[in-house]
């Protein structure tokens, strides 16, 4: 109590200021959330009511837009969202699991094994993190093209499963795990894989969640790479399909709004479930922007 008084001088004025700040913050938070509220409402409105509509919902509630993007779209030659949803989910999940496995093994190796070139490799991973994506856009496309993988799931998965960022985080975390723990398993004749899956991963749940969350989200929201690596409509993830609706289907606003909901809703749910690892991940910083 005494500490709080010190902080704000007079506790009475302090209290007033605090409530004032809370009101301002509440207003701003609503302003920040408003676009979501608007798009949710718009996705249930009649097409003609969406344009220029005011701040509040209007009467006739319709599910037509959802029906259209999930079902009828294919009849008029558009990619249906159901398939795109699966594509997004499939690609993002595979990449996330692979990044954790590959990154975990590599991080463990760098943190707990001695071999020639270990120092060099650790520096190499830090070096990798310095360079922006743009530098790799053209040559990675060409590598994939030379492997005859354009227009496949593999093209949208393989280039993203080796994440230097993930290796680095695992490496740093594993370094903190005492060697005695590992040695005791080794003496009991436990294999390296047992150490990794029974000790390292379970102990590193917080960092694994952070890595998984950011990787999954990054893949789910990806757009540029997907338009470069895949042109086949059946394989398109949701971002590409939605962008296609926006560009070539400009008039059908309701469908776009429903698409936005399908694209953002799952990630928002994930974000709310894992909000703590998420905020911890950001404050740890060194994360990609």
């Amino acid at each position, binding site marked *: 109590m005494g500490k709080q008084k010190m*902080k704000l*001088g007079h506790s009475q004025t302090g209290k007033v200021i*605090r409530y004032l700040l*809370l009101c*301002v*913050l509440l207003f*701003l938070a609503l302003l*920040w959330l408003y*676009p*979501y509220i*608007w*798009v949710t409402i*718009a996705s249930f409105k009649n097409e003609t009511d969406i*344009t*220029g*509509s*005011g701040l509040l919902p209007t009467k006739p509630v319709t599910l037509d837009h959802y029906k259209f993007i999930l079902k009828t779209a294919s009849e008029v030659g558009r990619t249906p969202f159901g398939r795109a949803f699966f594509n997004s989910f499939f690609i993002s999940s595979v990449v996330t699991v692979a990044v954790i496995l590959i990154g975990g*093994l590599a991080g463990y*190796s760098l943190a*707990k*094994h*001695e071999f020639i070139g270990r120092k060099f490799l650790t520096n190499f991973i830090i070096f990798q993190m310095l360079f*922006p994506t*743009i*530098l*790799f*856009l*053209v*040559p990675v*496309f*060409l*590598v994939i*093209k030379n492997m005859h993988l354009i227009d496949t799931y593999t093209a949208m998965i393989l*280039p993203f*499963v*080796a994440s230097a960022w993930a*290796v680095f985080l695992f490496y740093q975390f594993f370094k903190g795990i005492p*060697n*005695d723990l*590992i*040695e005791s398993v080794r*003496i009991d004749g436990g294999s*390296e894989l047992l150490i990794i899956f029974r000790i390292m991963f379970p102990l590193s749940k917080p960092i694994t969640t952070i890595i998984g969350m950011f990787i999954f989200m990054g893949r789910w*929201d990806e757009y*540029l790479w997907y338009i*470069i690596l895949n042109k086949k409509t059946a394989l398109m993830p949701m971002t590409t399909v*939605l*962008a296609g609706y*926006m560009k070539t289907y400009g008039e059908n*606003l309701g469908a*776009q709004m429903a698409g936005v909901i399908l694209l*953002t809703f799952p*990630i*928002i749910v994930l*974000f709310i479930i894992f*909000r703590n690892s998420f905020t911890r991940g*950001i*404050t740890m*910083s060194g994360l990609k*922007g």
Partner: protein
Amino acid sequence: MNKVISGKKSKIGSKVGLVLIAPYLVLSIVFWCIPFVWSFILALQKWNMMSPAKFVGLSNFIKIFSDKLFYISLRNTFQFIGVFIPLGVALSLLIAWMIYKAQRASSFFLISFLLPYVTSGVAYAVIFSRLFAHDGVVNVFLRGINLNIPFFTDPRIAMSSIAVLVVWKIMGYYALIFYAGLQAIPQSIYDAALIDGASGTQTFFKVTVPMLNASFVTILIFAIGLSVNIFTEPFLITEGGPFFATHTFVFWTYKTTFELFKAGQGSALAIVTAAISFGLVFVVRKFVEREVQL
């Protein structure tokens, strides 16, 4: 104690370590090392990705620097930075400070402001192109004061409009970094300032802001990376227009490589873009970064 155990790192088979890191290394060689080297070779070539490549020396770079679009893209990038960085930094610092001072429901606010960050660039491009459209909600609202702003169709403000909506997206992320920075400042420093008779504003600018140096540097580096590499929003909302007003470097790289099929030119552009980004980060490190002593 057994000798094997007491060693700092276990000496167990040097091969095992290599085996464990092998998947990462193989993938890195294919999708990082080879592309990395190739991009510099490509930049010196003229190649349409079909017929054999031709070595052309530095002519791709000369072409870029003598192209009007280079200066247009540079101007657009700086217009973006000019709006995005001051607005984004000031707003996120203000909000972090308010959340810190309000001492209540801080995680609720932090989460609310972070929500837009998890939204896909495509999704919020769709939302905002509607909200800020000629007949969108914002302009319907502005009609009340007899105003109609052509956010995305006036070449003078299109890039700034995009900057504003990126601020909306990213602000919570930066605010969280500032918030963590604020929490790390020891209370004793504020107490000392209070005893020395410093006013609230003085304390803020002479104590809080300098103590947040590390947060400022982190955020500025992130913000520069984002600004120089902006793509999805101008690509989807304005398609680089009107009159090239939102033509950016990544947009240019994409068009050159994947629509005009000039892989060499595209690679050179990517290198120029990365160089601009590195240059600006260097400037920040040099002029903003300080050692903060407790």
